[in-house]
């Protein structure tokens, strides 16, 4: 008697609520599969695999009748209660032998389709009943969990070796939407029953029933305490006597109040519109339970992941400091390199003019001296010498170039070894992260990348410093000032020589002082030129140390050493993202649950895991 999906009495908001719930499930699904290589995430995936089909089914089977599994220890009167509810002997009951029920019994109204239940797999028998209590639900009389041995069969065969009741129970319960937990004074504190119920309670509302009411004391207050200690909310426990109820039913008498209340609760809380609410609440509970489980699995890793992230930042800073120190020292030490660079700029921009010609001449002479001397080679030396930053090298040889930048293989391996320890604490093991000691291939990809980035960064930094200084040359006043100062002396010398030659010697006929003055004058001109050149270079170099400091201070933003530790930071970030998403999803689920929460009168549920 499956009701149509667009049940006219369904609450108008239901579909909207389910849309929000579907969104949540989609997000959870995407999150669960987002980091399959991480062992804690694999645990989450395993938990999800058990939950996902149920969530799907709950959504698909929104309008189907609820299946109520009657569970409890052997001898607690499950079958008797089912018989009483079904209004006739549908399931064998009695005290002849324990356990009584071996094959589960499914009780449904005559027109209800139960073909979707895994009847054959669980060896269930279907019984039809017209009783009002089963008009709108499907009842399943389940086998007990407490007679099947938990120990393996011994050497001597025992009658219970063939008892598979608990296995059967665990095969049936996944098909149940609601659990009707039956207990007696002797069995309400049974460990094995509590274990089975705890395993199947997430997402399944429960009805609690104490049977044997006419014989046993009322243990409901104590049972309620016990259940609440295990994390259940227990709005109500029904107390019935199945035998008495069956007798009264057969005799056509009115049921006693406890039994009547149970029948009423089944009708009001599990049928029709209530069934949708039960499913929706159950699904949300299940999603909440799953997210709670994933918290339990992931929380122990949170500290480790945070420590890895902090450690990676610390090690990166350490290597960057070494890099910055070495770069600063090298740049400062490369005086002649700077000079050459700046002179080069000078020569490029200043053409023609006496002083320019003088400068070109000096540079030509200086070029006779071998290049690179005093710069000490290395990446920075090469850059300052105006060469390509890094010659093409492969494998271990690249380390040699890194030494120049203050980073040695030992320092990198130290950082990576420290991070390996932290990664192991966060359960991020190879191949999620690389090995501490970089092999040939890893060197190729990390050290070379670092060298490339550093080379580019340094080259652009040096270019910037040079360009700033280039600006100082561009003023016409500077250029012509120097030209005039230099040419001034030359003109003075020429004038003096002209006066000497034309006026004194030719005109006055005095004895000249020969070429002596000219020689002296050329030496003075040379010295004057060099002095001017020195002045010019001082002007160009001014504030270089400070600028180098400024350049090096910006090294952190360039993330130059990142390639060396990239695997650790990437893995740490992935894990941190995964953990953060779990928190977000749990909050979303809690918000949704709070928005949709409706108090149930008689249905209990598993709120949380027992402490």
């Amino acid at each position, binding site marked *: 008697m499956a009701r149509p999906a667009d049940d006219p009495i369904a609450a108008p908001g239901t579909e909207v609520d389910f849309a929000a719930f579907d969104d949540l499930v989609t997000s959870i699904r995407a999150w669960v599969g987002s980091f399959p290589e991480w062992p804690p995430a694999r645990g989450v995936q395993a938990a999800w695999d058990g939950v996902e089909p149920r969530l799907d089914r709950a959504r698909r089977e929104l309008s189907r009748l609820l299946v109520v599994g009657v569970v409890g220890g052997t001898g607690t009167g499950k079958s008797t209660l089912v018989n009483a509810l079904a209004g006739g002997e549908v399931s064998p009951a009695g005290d002849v*032998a324990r356990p009584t029920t071996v094959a589960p019994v499914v009780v449904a109204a005559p027109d209800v389709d139960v073909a979707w239940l895994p009847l054959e797999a669980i060896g269930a028998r279907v019984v039809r009943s017209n009783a009002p209590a089963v008009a709108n639900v499907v009842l399943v009389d389940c086998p007990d969990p407490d007679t099947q041995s938990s120990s393996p069969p011994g050497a001597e065969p025992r009658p219970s070796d063939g008892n598979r009741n608990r296995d059967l129970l665990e095969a049936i319960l996944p098909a149940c939407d609601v659990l009707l937990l039956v207990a007696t004074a002797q*069995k309400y504190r049974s460990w094995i029953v509590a274990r089975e119920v705890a395993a199947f309670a997430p997402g399944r509302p429960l009805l609690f029933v104490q049977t044997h009411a006419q014989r046993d004391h009322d243990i409901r207050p104590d049972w309620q305490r016990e259940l609440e200690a295990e994390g259940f909310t227990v709005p109500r426990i029904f107390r019935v006597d199945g035998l008495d109820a069956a007798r009264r039913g057969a005799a056509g008498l009115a049921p006693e109040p406890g039994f009547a209340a149970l029948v009423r609760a089944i009708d009001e809380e599990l049928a029709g519109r209530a069934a949708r609410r039960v499913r929706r609440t159950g699904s949300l509970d299940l999603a909440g339970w799953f997210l709670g489980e994933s918290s339990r699995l992931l929380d122990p890793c949170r500290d480790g992941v945070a420590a890895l992230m902090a450690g990676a930042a610390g090690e990166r800073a350490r290597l960057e400091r070494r890099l910055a120190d070495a770069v600063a020292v090298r740049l400062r030490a490369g005086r002649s390199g700077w000079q050459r660079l700046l002179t080069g700029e000078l020569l490029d921009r200043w053409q023609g003019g006496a002083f320019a010609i003088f400068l070109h001449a000096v540079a030509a002479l200086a070029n006779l001296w071998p290049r690179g001397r005093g710069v000490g080679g290395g990446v920075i030396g090469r850059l300052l010498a105006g060469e390509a930053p890094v010659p093409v090298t492969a494998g271990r040889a690249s380390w040699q170039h890194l030494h120049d930048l203050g980073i040695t293989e030992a320092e990198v391996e*130290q950082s990576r070894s*420290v991070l390996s320890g932290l990664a192991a604490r966060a359960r991020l093991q190879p191949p999620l992260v690389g090995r501490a000691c970089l092999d040939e291939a890893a060197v190729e990809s990390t050290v070379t990348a670092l060298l490339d980035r550093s080379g580019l960064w340094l080259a652009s930094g040096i270019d910037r410093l040079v360009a700033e200084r280039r600006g100082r040359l561009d003023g016409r006043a500077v250029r012509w000032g120097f030209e005039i100062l230099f040419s001034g002396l030359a003109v003075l010398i020429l004038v003096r020589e002209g006066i000497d030659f034309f006026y004194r010697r030719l005109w006055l006929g005095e004895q000249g002082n020969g070429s002596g003055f000219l020689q002296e004058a050329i030496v003075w001109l040379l010295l004057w030129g060099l002095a001017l050149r020195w002045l010019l270079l001082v002007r160009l170099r001014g504030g270089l140390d400070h600028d180098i400091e400024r350049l090096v201070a910006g090294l952190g933003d360039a993330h130059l050493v990142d390639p060396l530790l990239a695997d650790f930071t990437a893995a740490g970030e992935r894990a941190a993202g995964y953990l953060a998403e779990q928190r977000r999803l749990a909050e979303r689920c809690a918000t949704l649950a709070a928005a949709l929460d409706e108090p149930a009168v008689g249905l209990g549920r598993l709120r949380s895991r027992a402490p």
Partner: protein
Amino acid sequence: MTGNDVGPPGPRCRGTNGGLMSGPNHASPPPAGSHAAWAGVVVPLAAEVDRLIPLAATLGVADPATSAWHGQLFGKLVPQLARPPVLVVAVGGGTNTGKSLVVNSIAGAAVSRSTPEAARTRHPLASLPVGMAATDGIGGLFPGFVPRRWESDADPITASPLPGEAEDILVWKEDTTGRQPAGVVLLDTPDIDGTLRDNWHRAELVRNAADVIVAVLTQQKYNDAAVRDFFRPAATAGKTLIVVFNMVDWPRQRERIAGWLATFRAETGSDPIAVYAAPYDPAAADRGAIGFHPLPECTPGGDRTAPAYLTGPEVIAALAASDIDRIKLKALSGALAVVLDPVAGVEGWLEAYSASARAWQASRQRLADAAHVEVTLPPAPREIVWNEIWTWLEPRRSRFDLAVSGVYRLAGRGVAWAARGVGLRRDAAERREDFAAEELAALKRALGGFVERLDDACRADERLAGVLAPRLVGADRTAWFADLQARHAALPVISDDYRAFVRAELDRFARDNPATVRWILAALNAGAVARPAITVGLGLAGAAVVPAAAATAGSLSTLVHTAGDVVVGTAATLAGEGALGLTAAGLKPLVERLFAGWSMERSRVLADSIHDVVLGDVLTELDRLASAGSRPEPERIRRLLAAARELA
């Protein structure tokens, strides 16, 4: 094998008194000396086993505390062989089956409070016969429990341990009615199937100590797995069972009981000596004294002329009238049989211990094989070693060919001066600095490599992971490198150990080769620069060149040793007489040793760091586990087991 196989031969007795056995045709009780003879074997056996248990636990052998033999050995044989025999009668069963009510009924007094709520009895209660408290008491009879004198019938429910006291309390009370038979200790026990697992454990401790168990069964619980699992080991260990079916709908369910009992017997392998039915009678329960209907038809050979109804005290009196000595002996033999079982007994555990010890030995070997790392130190600055040799040579100088040494020294200085002049050579202090930096880098790389090998070993071997992972994963590795750096910074250029080593080497060489001593200087000047391949590893025995680096033989320790070859590069080609002298007199090995010794001295800081900071006491722990197989206890235990078999 069950306890019944081992006990003294003789037909099983069926009693006449309400189905209890009595003694007309049983074997005579054991002579007084037999307890002492058993104790002479069992007590030392238990002591040896006890010594081995903590080690076995660290080896990863399953905890024997939950095994049957452990319970029988420590819970029954040791305490009970050491003192005058008493008959321990324990009442056991599931939650809310009326155990306390049965105890109160057969004790004839309200000793243990009975409540309608389940699993309320948290602690066992022992009712002692009159006079026992004044003589032997219960000291030692129930190991694992803290005895507490009874103050009210609520004690088994409410007693809680004092601060620092063990959790398991046993409340005891002396019988005041005078009806409890002498030599019989009666116990109420917590449940065996409830949600409080501590209760199960306490019930099991009492069960292990018991000679007779009164199994309180009900229509709901007689076939529960938890109930079967509790009583089956009792039957296996030769304990005598009395079954009480409680809350029976009497007489309607009388004919059902035979079927229930048959199931119980088949499931537990037990053979109860008496079966009673206690009718469902709320009024009697409220009075605290229920009655018992003997069911002689349920025990083969049961006496059908016995009275149809017994009070509680009459039930215990019937038991006391049967052959107590024989019941006691059967329980003790059964317990011994459980202990001696070749698979499930001590021997099986010992096998697991030995297998585990072997596996640990293999793990240690694996670690020793895997965890070593080659350190390629930079070539030692020559003058460091040279200076030491020069100091040694100084007093012998007059005996040398000064010309030869002079030429070499002069030539060496000239080359050095020239090299410095053209900027190709740094001065001595700079060279030291460069060397120290390079050496530290090499040591750090070695440490990193070593730790990585340990990581790998842990990934490959779960046992090693169990021991090493807490240090490898939990520790702050930055501190390791900082420690190495600090040790390296504090390292003197030449240690006293090395100085002594050089002297000893040179003295020995001079003694063995008096003729060629004069070439030492030449050889050194001509200049071997040794670049030894140092290996730092975990070794099982030390053969270090520098004596101070040697380890205690036989145990796992961080070692520095040279790996076979010392790579000696020569700075200059040796020519003429010098070269001849070097090879002919074995100078080359000497030079190698001197340089290698220095480098090894240096790498000792790495070994020390690994030993002290990285591994801490893990190596000692690993050695302890790996040497478990060679301890004397297993052999002694095997001998004692053989002796016990002969007794049995």
